């Protein structure tokens, strides 16, 4: 850390007292930050700590209330993203700022401020993608691409502008370990070329591995600067959260003679569209008291699998899926819920919750069929007070932090909304729960809480099925682990017998598919 600053006296970027206020909330409170040349600087903090607000100000999408920004020692005001790009600041957004109906090259073109022909852009992008080992087909429609591929477009788009500082907002929250490794190689290469990177993450291991320095935010304030390589993951987490972070504890499961709660017998499904995966003859049984994890590279049929079990897509024969012994293959979501199952889909906004509706309304929407007596009165009248009470119970049980009594789902941060959605399902004490990506883009504190809640539910006598791309998470929660690849599910093995290498091998074979895609570029 000290070397990078010693080489060049003036830092690339210096921020003094940057403040942003939203209504009552000070999202960023007098933030100081210095980034040297050729440095990977981590910005750490829980969800809602003000990381995204800070970088949006640096990129000109938000206007600071007060504070100063110095670029190469010069005071600047960055009033729009175009200006930020002109200075040499590039940004890779967390939720991507891509346009699904446009091609990769068109997406890149939109962020270039000069007029370059689409063919020239495609060629340049292709060149960069080769140089940095980021395979990309410039003429592919973004809507057809996986999240990993989308991120490559964002990164290449950013590199094309030859920025001095690249801001990456939670870049690995959507990537598999393999994809993340590739990304780190790219970032290390950029650092060796003298570029600076502001790396926002709450994944502490990767920050320790990658970053030269770290600035930690909590509740909109800087709580400390440190060298992440000198810290432990636990000490970094403590700085972020402000208290000790507990990892989930998993008492041994006693499932030998437990009852079978979920059984899937030969589940197959034709691909729903030209870009989805077929499910091929999946068999699985789960007993009371266990957590089963399903690993796999994104887009190998996990989404299709979830839809089939949850009843979003029904099966031809009722016996393919049994919940607590009842054949449910031909039943819809609500009927399956009535059998005691609960489902948490991958996408929080728009799938797990209706973004523009209040939390209490979202609660009612998902549970009015299963909790008719509690939530609905005569003639289907809504019992507002009962719902408000249940909503309050979930909020306090899962420690959901929100800005208003009963806010819209979309106004919650990702982690808090996820806690609410999971809490909403757990509150019913389901005997079978299927969760797809339980802690996708969720901060450490919230993730630990969610994982513990899932384990506790299982130990209370339920079957918990977790589909996740986060292998650490799977090892933390699962008693058994299976791997999904190209619509097929490997037979589950006890977690103790699974190693990262073994999972990697099971995930493999997908390699050929990714390579052929890369060649098309």
């Amino acid at each position, binding site marked *: 850390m000290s070397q990078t600053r010693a080489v060049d006296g003036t830092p690339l970027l210096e921020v003094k007292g940057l403040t942003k206020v939203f209504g009552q909330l000070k999202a960023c409170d007098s933030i100081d930050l210095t980034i040297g040349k050729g440095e990977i600087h981590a910005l750490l903090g829980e969800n809602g700590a003000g990381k995204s607000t800070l970088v949006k100000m640096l990129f000109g999408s938000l206007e600071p209330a007060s504070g100063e920004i110095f670029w190469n020692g010069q005071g600047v005001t960055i009033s729009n993203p175009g200006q930020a790009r002109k200075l040499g600041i590039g940004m890779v*957004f967390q939720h991507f700022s891509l346009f699904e109906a446009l091609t990769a090259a068109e997406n890149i073109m939109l962020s270039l401020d000069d007029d370059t022909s689409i063919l020239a852009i495609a060629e340049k992008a292709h060149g960069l993608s080769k140089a940095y080992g980021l395979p990309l087909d410039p003429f592919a429609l973004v809507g057809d691409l996986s999240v990993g591929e989308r991120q490559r477009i964002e990164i290449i788009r950013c590199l094309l502008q030859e920025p001095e500082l690249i801001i990456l907002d939670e870049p690995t929250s959507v990537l598999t370990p393999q994809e993340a490794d590739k990304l780190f190689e790219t970032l290390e290469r950029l650092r060796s070329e003298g570029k600076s990177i502001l790396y926002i993450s709450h994944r502490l291991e990767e920050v320790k591995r990658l970053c030269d320095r770290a600035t930690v935010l909590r509740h909109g304030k800087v709580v400390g600067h440190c060298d992440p390589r000198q810290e432990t993951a636990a000490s970094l987490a403590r700085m972020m959260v402000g208290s000790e972070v507990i990892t989930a504890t998993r008492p041994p499961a006693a499932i030998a003679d437990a009852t079978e709660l979920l059984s899937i017998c030969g589940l197959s499904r034709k691909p729903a569209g030209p870009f989805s995966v077929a499910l091929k003859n999946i068999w699985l049984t789960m007993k009371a008291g266990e957590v089963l994890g399903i690993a796999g590279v994104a887009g190998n049929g996990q989404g299709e699998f979830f839809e089939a079990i949850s009843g979003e897509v029904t099966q031809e024969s009722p016996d393919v899926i049994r919940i607590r012994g009842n054949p449910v293959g031909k039943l819809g979501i609500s009927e399956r819920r009535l059998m005691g199952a609960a489902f948490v889909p991958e996408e929080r906004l728009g799938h797990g919750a209706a973004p523009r509706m209040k939390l209490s309304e979202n609660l009612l929407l998902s549970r009015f069929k299963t909790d008719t007596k509690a939530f609905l009165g005569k003639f289907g009248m809504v019992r507002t007070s009962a719902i408000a009470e249940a909503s309050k119970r979930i909020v306090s049980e899962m420690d959901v932090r929100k800005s208003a009594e009963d806010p819209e789902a979309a106004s919650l941060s990702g982690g808090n909304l996820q806690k609410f959605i999971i809490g909403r399902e757990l509150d019913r004490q389901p005997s079978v729960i299927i969760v797809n990506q339980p802690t996708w883009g969720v901060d450490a504190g919230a993730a630990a809480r969610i994982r513990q809640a899932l384990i506790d539910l299982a130990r209370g006598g339920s079957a918990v099925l977790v589909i996740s791309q986060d292998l650490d998470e799977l090892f933390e929660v699962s008693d058994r682990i299976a791997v999904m690849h190209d619509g097929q599910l490997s037979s589950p093995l006890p977690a103790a017998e699974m190693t990262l290498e073994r999972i990697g091998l099971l995930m493999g074979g997908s390699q050929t598919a990714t390579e052929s895609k890369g060649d098309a570029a």
Partner: protein
Amino acid sequence: MFEAIVITIATAATPLLIAAMGELVVERSGVLNLGVEGMMIMGAVTGFSVAYMTGSPWLGVLAAIVVGALFSLLFGFLTLTLVTNQVATGLALTLLGLGLSGMIGESFVGLPGVKMGTVNVPYLSELPYVGRLLFGQDPIFYISIALTIGVSWFLFYTKAGLTLRSVGDNHASAHALGIRVIAIRYMAIMFGGACAGLAGGYLALVYVPQWVEGMSAGRGWIALALVVFASWRPGRVLAGAYLFGAVSIGQLHAQALGWPIPSQLLSALPYLATIIVLVLISRNKRLTMVNTPASLGQPFVPDR
């Protein structure tokens, strides 16, 4: 006989084509303006009255365009700046336009209008069969064709068009990249208004050169439907407009010939035929997904 019929088809299709092309650009930017009928009728009354008072159909057309654009600016101010509901505001604009035009046009009812002449390219317009069709029509017919080509080129071959489409696809992403979403939408809305005004002017200066209250007769709504059923593609809007024109002229002839089909059913035919054909050609879900502006009708408030 054949040529005459084709020319009447073109006359019936042109106002639909122009209004729909304008609305296509508006919707591609992510705004749903249901006020096409209102803007159109405002264009018609302005076009007629200005041409009547000055004697110049061209001044009438110009005035129709300007008034259409200004009228749409009202919609833009309400929906973009004050962030009102687009559907309700569009409906209000239609009602306002219909009422206001009736009031303005009251003293012009029954007066003889000024008809815009045809172009008539020497010699070429005397070619058999296609001469008058290709070289002897009113100038706005040619404008409508040029407009279709121009819009198509603009949307798919220019950066400005790409930017407009990006705003319609995802305004939050566009804003994050520093694209001026609101400014682009204002321009798109005014273009749509100008086109609707021109279409109205066409009705009152070419189609039937006189002013009749409510003379747009639902064409604004047809234009709106055309845009959707053509899955926001200019070429298909052209095809749809001419199909609609052809079937409406065809059913008139069928009625004149005394076919034993209820006239109400025949009158419904253009709507049915156009919708069926366009639904059939837009069955390709992927193409539809690519062409549908994903943020259509959604309000946008930039955070600063």
